């Protein structure tokens, strides 16, 4: 099994979730995060002093998946979240040793 972590634009989240659900992935966990990267922040002005706020709101998606679905899932996320502008985000994949469903105690692929 693998864990796919995707950082995407907040306004793309809804489309990504829909695309994943259509594809058959029912579960995921989403966190509101702040991204730093090539995409610069915006400028906020307080009392005439400008500040560049570097961090930009992003959505972080985590999905635990069977190995065989990873390629397609990543592809789907990348395609759906892409606008072509700097700051669209990253997706990375890590290995998962074990998964358990809390409700049932099921393990492995059954637990996803």
């Amino acid at each position, binding site marked *: 099994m693998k864990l796919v972590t995707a950082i995407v634009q907040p*306004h793309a989240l809804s489309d990504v979730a*829909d695309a994943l659900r259509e594809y*058959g992935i029912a579960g995921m966990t989403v966190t509101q995060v702040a991204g730093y990267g090539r995409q610069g922040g915006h400028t906020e002005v307080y009392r005439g002093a400008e500040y560049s706020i570097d961090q930009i709101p992003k959505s972080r998606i985590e999905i635990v998946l069977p190995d065989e679905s990873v390629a397609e899932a990543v592809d789907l996320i990348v*395609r*759906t*979240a892409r606008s072509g502008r700097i700051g669209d985000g990253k997706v990375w994949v890590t290995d998962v040793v074990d998964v358990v469903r809390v409700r049932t105690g099921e393990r492995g692929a059954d637990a996803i």
Partner: protein
Amino acid sequence: MAFTLDTGATAWLLVSASLVLLMTPALAFFYGGMVRARTVLNMMLMSFAALGVGAIVWTLVGYSIAFGDDIAGLFGNPFQFLGLHGEDGQSLLAESGVPFLVAAGFQMTFAIITVALISGAIADRVRFGTWIAFSAIWIVLCYAPMAHMVWGGGLLSADGPFAAIAEPIDFAGGTVVHINAGTAGLVLALIVGKRLGWRKDPMKPHSLPLVMLGAALLWFGWFGFNAGSAGTADSTAGLAWVNTTVATAAAMLGWMITEKIRDKNVTSLGAASGVVAGLVAITPAAGSVSPIGSIVLGAIAGIVCALAVGLKYRLGFDDSLDVVGVHLVGGLVGTVLIGFLATDSGLLYGGGVRQLLVQIVIAVAAVIFSAVVTTIIALLLKALMGWRVSEEDELTGIDVTHHAETGWDLMGGFGSRRAAGSPQSTGASTGSAGSAPYGETMSAHAAAQDPPTDSSSPEDDRESRPAQPATTGEPR
């Protein structure tokens, strides 16, 4: 009675009525900030519901029961001012030159705030429908008779039997409003039972700025409550205004000092609570003590209430937002201290114990009356409608489960939402435990798509998102 309009008195009473009306939403913020974020709306709606129900019930029969012709010293003729039908000379404020409806409206706001106060004792856990029913019945059976007894010429008024000892003093509602609401709160807390997790979870206030906003608006509104109770804009109103301010200031400081000594920290919840404790305690006394007396009275109230709010942990009742510790105790402190501090008749001013005695009598009478009537109403409603929401709803939070809303959403538009009623989402919300196979497009979901939104709309329709190379084929 021949009626002569006094525009100044009327202006002041119109303002006072408006100020007291504002106190109920203010209470909604005070209480709403004190509960957890997941129940803020329900808490606030309890006050708003009291406003809605209270205004109607008062118009229909409440005012008549309180201020109609006396029946047995307990209540007034309920049909006398049905629908607030009355003449300008007929109200208690006629002598001040205040029109009938202004007086009736002013009194209405007292009934509303009193029932709303009770809601703090049963935060986070009661059915909204039961609360609405309770509000309506309680105003009719408990508040209005009590108002009659104290202000409408009934048993506890200057026309009642105790006046033979000394004229009972309740300037603006120590008994009618605060002892009454506090006692009812205690009864309800006992009958409704504790919140899940009480004493384990701190259930800390989710927004202390909101609490302080509530306290501030309560203070502001209380000028109408107390200084408005003078019935006109004169020196007595001025005395009540100043007393209200200094007693409140002293109570806030008293609460702060108590906290500093006991807990090492001064809290904003304490400051806000001290404000309310002071306002409560000075309510019955505002017209009969001096500014210095008010400082003393306020300081005592602040200290006593700060200690009293801890009682519930020791005695084991979940008076969630301290209606008992602040309103019952504060109301008792104020009502009884009049016996010492009234400049005319108080013990410390050489007036002997008669005033003190009478004050204790009316306080006790108010507690008993309120306890009995509230118990009957609450048990009846428990049997007929039930008080508690389900445990699961309480754990999840009553806002989402009973009002289908969440108080705060600062993430703004975060997440995937679609119009309900679609097969997929309904399926989801009942929870399909079967695992959807990978790679297979869920057809139910496809069917759940919104109809293409107004693609045929004639006007410049800008719903489409900026061009994007995505290939999902699903226009947003």
